């Protein structure tokens, strides 16, 4: 629905918007590799949806906090400039809960968010030789 401001939103719509599935991810605060946690497969599905776990892996995940999830958490933390620990700390999970764009952050296993690099092709006239230079 479309509203001129948030106070115009009917209360019952507000109520049914609060049951945000992603809020339940906060229950995984402190979870780390090597353990098994009830319902963790949902968080793996989240990370796969946004590209942090390869599409090639089938979507029926276990609740094991395995290396695949640890790598995904670390890449997520790196992308969003959080502490890169691989552990599901509260700050990371609070970030995961924020509404967002559906486009993936990671494409074909490569995070593009940190690239920031631009490649210049510089040609020195007369020598038709091309050099690649990278701006950091």
């Amino acid at each position: 629905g479309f509203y001129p401001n948030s106070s115009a939103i009917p209360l019952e719509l507000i109520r049914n918007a609060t049951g945000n599935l992603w809020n339940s991810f906060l229950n995984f605060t402190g979870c780390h590799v090597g353990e098994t946690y009830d319902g963790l497969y949902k968080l793996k599905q989240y990370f796969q949806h946004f590209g942090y776990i390869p599409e090639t892996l089938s979507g029926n995940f276990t609740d094991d906090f395995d290396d695949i999830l640890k790598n995904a958490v670390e890449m997520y933390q790196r992308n969003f400039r959080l502490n890169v620990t691989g552990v599901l700390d509260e700050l990371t999970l609070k970030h995961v809960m924020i509404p967002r764009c559906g486009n993936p952050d990671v494409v074909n296993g490569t995070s593009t968010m940190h690239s920031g690099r631009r490649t210049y092709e510089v040609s020195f006239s007369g020598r038709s030789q091309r050099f690649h230079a990278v701006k950091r």
Partner: protein
Amino acid sequence: YSLFPGEPRWPSNRRDLTYAFDPRNKLTEEVKTVFSRAFARWAQVTPLTFTRVQSFRTSDIFIGFYAGEHGDGEPFDGPLRTLAHAFSPPTGHFHLDAEENWIISSEGGDGVLSVTEAIDLESVAVHEIGHLLGLGHSSVEGSIMYPTITTGMRKVELTTNDVEGVQYLYGENPNLNGSVVPPPSTQQRDTGESGAASRI
């Protein structure tokens, strides 16, 4: 800023782009005007132009609000969580979750997070248009192309990070006389009046 793999962009002979809305949505003029404002922000810094047309089938960009599964294998998920997605050039598809509580005023709501379940439509539109033009997500938190948006928050001004990215793809707006300087991409930008919710 980042780009889609292969750096796809609208070809040089297609820079005057048209956009249309899915007629099934029966959107009001007020809602459509939010998108006009959003497109104008990108037009201001590039040689691109965006014109709204009636024909949803022949426009360059197709905009629609859908709930759940809507044919592209990326179903929406109800209020909050995933808000919208858009495809890289020259595909032109721009989909938004019909089940969100969208704030359409040009002020983007009251700015106070009394209702955390509301989303500023223009903020999301400016972000997704960045994808339609070829930009990926940016890790700079204050930028428009940062993947997340705090509910109740309005973020519609292009930052230097966004402008640098889109001008890498298309160059500058030849008519831009430099009087408009985008704000820097700083973390403070996202605090708004209330600020607390976005200072995680």
